[in-house]
């Protein structure tokens, strides 16, 4: 039994109490647009009026309400995981776009290239993306490859882009692609499993492809004020946060800081996030933390494998072996985050944490962390 059942099926009030009021909302946007009572502006998602219902889809699909990792694994992959660090996957590569890499794309441009390919090939009807510029990112529903190209490049504040998914479903679209953060991937999967009543909710036919991004945390929009000050108001054309610390590029040059300089802007919800590699995506895309012209690609589902193969066959991307000596570093980073989250949830939040970890997972996690940490 997942927590929450003790209240009956919980709804908006519980969502507000457990997630929003405790700043645990990661602004994924999945609850925005299902009803008129939850609204968003910038990175904020809030209940603006009590809906009066005791139960609600909003609670069910929220990635920050009780989530059983074991159940999620079984629902998405049909089996449980062995690797507690990266979850279930069939392959991991370095990859980069060969064609169609937009100017603004991050690292190897693989996410943009794969999304563009899926659109061109009709595998998806449209794609939920985060567009806009670094300082004012916004949700976008792309219906063509040009729009995808304009959305290229990482944004570092939480954008509730899944509201576009809800809107697209409402407008009757199916096979919608989603490129999102790990929390957004979880939200999409939860809503797919929800057996939600009515055509207005995401279902398996609604979603065409889920590309998940690596994400260790997102930042609050107060970051923009900091950047504005630091760069003297110059336009920031690109941003990155490698291990050495954040970097921003303006037309005039490069600005860099220590991670500590921006730590205060990290969203509180991200400190309790268990998933840094989008474990439930069809394909996960991230940096290599090593070589800035390549992406890390984790092929997870059959659907992910199909489009991966198609991309190779069409020459859209090229791949390299994932350097074996770097895999422990990636696993260590992912496991380290999980350990921090677990200890935080237990210490600060008592048993109200949203992650339900099967006993076996817990034991494996400790073991794998112990192994890799030496």
């Amino acid at each position, binding site marked *: 039994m997942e927590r929450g059942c003790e209240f009956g099926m919980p709804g908006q009030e519980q969502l507000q109490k457990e997630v929003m009021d405790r700043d645990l909302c990661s602004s994924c946007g999945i609850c925005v647009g299902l009803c*008129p009572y939850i609204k968003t*502006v*910038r990175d*904020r998602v*809030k209940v603006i*009026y009590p809906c009066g219902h005791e139960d609600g889809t909003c609670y069910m699909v929220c990635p920050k309400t009780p989530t059983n990792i074991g159940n999620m694994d079984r629902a998405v992959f049909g089996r449980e995981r062995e690797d507690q660090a990266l979850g279930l996957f069939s392959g991991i590569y370095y990859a980069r776009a060969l064609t169609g890499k937009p100017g603004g794309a991050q690292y190897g441009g693989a996410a943009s290239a794969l999304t563009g390919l899926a659109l061109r090939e009709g595998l998806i009807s449209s794609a939920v993306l985060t567009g806009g510029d670094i300082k004012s990112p916004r949700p976008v529903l792309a219906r063509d490859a040009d729009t995808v190209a304009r959305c290229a490049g990482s944004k570092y504040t939480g954008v509730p882009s899944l509201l576009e998914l809800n809107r697209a479903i409402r407008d009757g679209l199916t096979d919608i692609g989603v490129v999102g953060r790990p929390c957004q991937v979880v939200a999409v999967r939860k809503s797919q499993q929800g057996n939600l009543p*009515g055509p*207005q909710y995401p279902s398996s036919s609604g979603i065409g492809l889920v590309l998940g991004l690596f994400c260790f945390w997102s930042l609050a929009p107060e970051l923009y004020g900091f950047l504005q000050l630091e760069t003297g108001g110059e336009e920031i054309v690109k941003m990155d946060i490698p291990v050495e610390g954040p970097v921003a590029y303006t037309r005039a040059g490069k600005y860099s800081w220590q991670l500590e300089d921006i730590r205060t802007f990290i969203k509180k919800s991200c400190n309790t996030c268990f998933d840094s590699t989008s474990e439930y995506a069809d394909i996960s895309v991230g940096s290599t933390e090593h070589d800035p012209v390549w992406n890390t690609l984790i092929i997870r589902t059959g659907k992910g494998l199909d489009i991966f193969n198609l991309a190779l066959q069409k020459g859209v991307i090229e791949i390299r072996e994932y350097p074996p000596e770097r895999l422990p570093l990636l696993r260590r980073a992912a496991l380290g985050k999980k350990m921090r989250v677990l200890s935080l949830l237990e210490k600060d939040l008592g048993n109200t944490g949203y992650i339900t970890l099967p006993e076996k997972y817990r034991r494996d996690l400790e073991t794998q962390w112990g192994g890799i940490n030496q």
Partner: protein
Amino acid sequence: MSLAGVCQEKAGVKVALTGNEAIARGALEAGVAYAASYPGSPTAEVLGTLSRVAKQFNLYAEWSVNEKVAMEGVAAASFAGLRSLVVMKADGLNVALDFAGALAISGCRGGMVMVLGDDPNAHSSVREEDSRNLCKAKHLPVLEPSSVREAMEMTREAFALSEELELPVVVRCVTRVCHASGDVELGELVRPERKPDFTRENRVITFGIKLHAGQESKLARAAHLVCDSAFNSYTGPENPERLVIASGPCYMYAQEALEMLGAGGTTGILKLGTTWPLPEALLLEHMERVPEVIFAEEVEPFVEDNVMALAAGCLPGKVRFYGKRSGHVAGPAGPGIGELDPDVLAASLGNILGINYSPGTIDNKQEALSLLEDKMPDRELAFCAGCPHRASFWAVRAALELDGRGGIVLGDIGCYTLGMARTGYYLLQTVHCMGAGIGLAGGMGNLSRFGFDKPVVTLVGDSTFYHAAIPALINARYHNSNFMCIILDNETTAMTGHQPHPGRQHTAMGEPAHTVPMEDIIRGVGMPYIVQDPYDVEASIEVIYDLLRQEGPRVLILRRSCVLAAVRGKQKDRVYVNEDKCIGDSCGCGRFCSRVFACPANVWDAEKGRARIDEAVCNGCGVCASLCPQGAIMVERGV
């Protein structure tokens, strides 16, 4: 209601006029040359009427920016020898009071009449006020019409009295007279022919206490004059057992109540048309003949207190008084609160006279109400269908919740005052008087030095902005108070019937105006501002949210014409529900459009289990369509 009646040239003809039209006619018969007002119920139609006939009668009529300015303009005309009229509701006198008090000291030249509209029961006001106490405090004579006919006659005669006393004269008219219709016998119309005359020789000064002595002697003369006024009259038996002293419409109520009680043979009524100063000799003459006096007036015990003071001096212990002070004359809300009516007065008089006033009529009332219940639509105080304020309030509420710091909302006076109720999602936390929201916001915005950390928002209408907001805005800029002022600009004075204000292109008389855009004022004060259309709710939420996060005094103009003015004479957009898209109660919205957003045009079709648009009520704004989570509400643009 007839403008033709107001303009009727033939004297002696009887026409049906409203009280407000009768006041306008009375002024025309007195040859009024200059009239000014700020719109307010119950007297808004007086200047509305005069402005429409202004050219025909060669007079000047203006909707002034506020009551004080109106009174000053009117006084200037009087100083120059013209007959002049200023009109305002009770609340307006508070605004004009500083000048009114000074004017009572300096006195006036051309006959000057102040029509004060009191609104007992606050039918269309935020509060009920009895302006007579203020008139007394400022040494102004007061006449009180009891009927439509008297409203005309008193206004006309007040000009002459004013000239005789060289003092402005107040005609205090309550809602039940202003809004009633009745036959009046017209007098001669007089075209203003006087030429303004004010030279270096004229001095109108209010300095020194000698002038106070002059005021007192003017009032003493007035008290003497009013003893012979035809507006005071006695009806009843030659030797009554008791006397009812009644003023305003209570005179009518008293007649009816005595008739209902069958007590007309023993009880007389002294109708008091001149309530300040009191016609002392006349009162004493009547009171000497009776052991009991009962007072019938609205709202406060004004006549009662002053008559009792008179009797205490002149007839000590001889008369027993019944009224609000004794608790005998009282409506359901208590003595001195709310209106009287024949029922209330009959019950009060019956109690005093020891006549059992049958509550049978009360039963009939209940029966009548229950018979009407089905036929009367269930209406709460709400914004009109399509009112831009509804969209604005929804956006403000959303932005405040999104901001999440518990921002507070201060209100002001206008249609949007309803924002304190469900129709405005209970947003308003203060409602006081014109412009008070900005001053209060300025104060709240200064509290951060004590650790107050909530965002402060104040909502003010466009007409109220021009009327009373500007000094508070300047003060806020000067002291850098931290708040957001949202001007709900519906481009008219909507609540009182779409009168123009300085932001408009035309004056009361329909002449092209030199418009004073609010942007120019705000810019002049040095405040940043943004203009946004509230019908675009999503964009409005974003703008308000961003402004909430800024510092210092700042302005947002939510601009969209009052929908009632906007759709007049135009084909409205057709809004309807696509019944395939609306999923009724299986939607998570819980009947949002009809239950929460609650525009009167959004209704629930119980039979179909779907939302529906009442197309007879809908004004076609389409805002509900933008908020429906299913996109089930369709808008067909009119041609």
